């Protein structure tokens, strides 16, 4: 029996927030579910090990899945070169939002993250760079005060040290739990991006699955070069919000990286395995060279 047929046909959509609506898969061969990966794009089922061996890329359709910030850093920068910045920054509960503190503590314990982004300095094929990586496991990588402040400080560090900056984005949008302060992070980060740009330095955005809402409507859309990973979901409004407005189902490829490329909002789509190479070449084309020790 083909692996794909291990499951009942799933009739729900494949995209974005599918977890809640998907039917529980029936596993007739008694393979534990946690050994299998069901691709949210092509709906095929593969062994988790195979998916992981490809660094979370679906072997059937090439969907580039979500990976943790630390895995991303390991895949992207030169071994041992990463020095984290502002690792102790924690958000407060500025509007006393119910259960926000408890929710964050639980996520900190579970993920080891302090908030939804890790920033730092590193080299990529010897070229010094400031890097920030968002992690969707932490409150869907929503942007509150900490994400905003760390992005701004990363831009400031890059401006001061005349370095390029690369931000790997993933986000559900602004963080509701911090109210209006979260919205203001959009202004703050965009302003810092402008200052880095005025200093003549290069900003590369890498849009990963999923990048939406206030992050799309601020720093994620402001890179000099905007790269996306294959089949990453990128948009302003959520699919369900739009479907609620238009009262019909959206096409499957709506808001995927390939759609954005076609519409003119992405410079290139780059596979994960080629990312280091592309990033380093693009940086060199902008005059950034290997650090001479």
């Amino acid at each position, binding site marked *: 029996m083909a692996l794909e047929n291990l499951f009942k046909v799933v009739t729900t959509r494949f995209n974005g927030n599918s977890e809640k609506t998907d039917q529980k898969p029936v596993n007739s061969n008694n393979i534990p579910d946690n050994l299998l990966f069901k691709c949210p794009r092509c709906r095929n089922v593969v062994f988790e090990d195979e998916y992981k061996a490809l660094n979370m890329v679906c072997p059937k359709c090439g969907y580039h899945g979500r990976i943790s910030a630390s895995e991303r850093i390991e895949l992207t920068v030169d071994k041992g070169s990463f020095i984290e910045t*502002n690792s*102790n*920054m*924690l*958000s*407060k509960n*500025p*509007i006393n*939002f*119910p259960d926000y503190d408890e929710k964050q503590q639980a996520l900190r314990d579970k993920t080891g993250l302090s908030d939804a982004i890790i920033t730092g300095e590193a080299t990529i094929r010897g070229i010094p760079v400031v890097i920030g990586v968002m992690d969707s496991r932490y409150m869907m990588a929503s942007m*509150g*005060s*900490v994400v*905003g*402040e760390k992005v*701004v400080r990363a831009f400031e560090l890059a401006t001061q040290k005349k370095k390029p900056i690369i931000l790997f984005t993933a986000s559900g949008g*602004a*963080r*509701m739990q*911090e*109210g*209006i*302060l*979260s*919205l*203001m*992070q*959009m*202004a*703050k980060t*965009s*302003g*810092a*991006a*402008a*200052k880095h740009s*005025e200093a003549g330095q290069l900003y590369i955005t890498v849009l990963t699955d999923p990048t939406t*809402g*206030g992050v*799309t*409507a*601020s*720093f*994620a*859309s*402001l890179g000099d070069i905007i790269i996306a990973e294959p089949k990453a979901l990128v*948009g*302003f*409004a*959520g699919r369900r*919000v*739009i479907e609620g*407005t*238009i009262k019909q189902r*959206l096409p499957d490829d*709506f*808001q995927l990286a390939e759609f954005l490329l076609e*519409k*003119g*909002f992405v410079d290139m789509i780059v596979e994960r395995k080629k990312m280091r190479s592309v990033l380093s070449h693009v940086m060199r084309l902008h005059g950034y060279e290997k650090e001479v020790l």
Partner: protein
Amino acid sequence: MNDKTAWERQCLIREKTRPTVNDYIPLIFDEFYELHGDRHYGDDAALMGGIARIDGIPVTVLAEVKGRDLNENKKTNFAMPHPEGYRKALRLAKQAEKFHRPVICFIDTPGAFCGIEAEERGQGEAIAKNIMEFMRLKTPVTSVVLGEAGSGGALALGVCDRLAMLENALYSVISPRGCASILWKDASREHEACEILKITAEDMVRLGVAEAIIEEPNGSAHYDVYKIAENIKEFLVKTLKENSSKNIDILLEERYSKFRKIGEFTE
């Protein structure tokens, strides 16, 4: 002193009789010429722009337009702009910069429109670009929230030197309805979400987002449109005088640092 709850204010600003920017413009400005189009795709009636004169000073006006009836709302899409609306705003803001005209923004939107075409034409990019460019626009920018200021669609006209809220106006990162659906899976609890989210004019001043609250006569703008227009005009004229006397580089530095310092965290 406004003792209404956020929910009471929310109900008030949703009333059809609440004045809109179309009521205010003739009362505040001596002249107003609407200018159309983003020069890329089209003209968005949800976000109106034009040149005007206030107290003798030429200014550029940008405004999200609530309709006063269903017909007007059909035309202005209930004040929910598409990307071409934001791009028109940016075009006119850059024009204002060229001719050294201050920019005045009136914010009154539930949010940027969420739809297929808005996505296809880059709603996120359009808002991001406005936010970044307004941050460094070399002319004074003053914004006034007339009714509701919904999320990124409001912020696209909200990066300014001074922000005033009408006393019953609300500014929120998410619609209270949306917040209630996420939090309790029950949109009908929006009145509770209204209070939790801290969205009133007083909250905005306390949180460093707004600098001024404009008094609504007898508790609401409905009751006396002439008086409320006068109050808005008084704020605008005073702010224009203060800002135009400042060196533009200092003004830009202050604008940047106003936003730069917003956020609460420990380290």
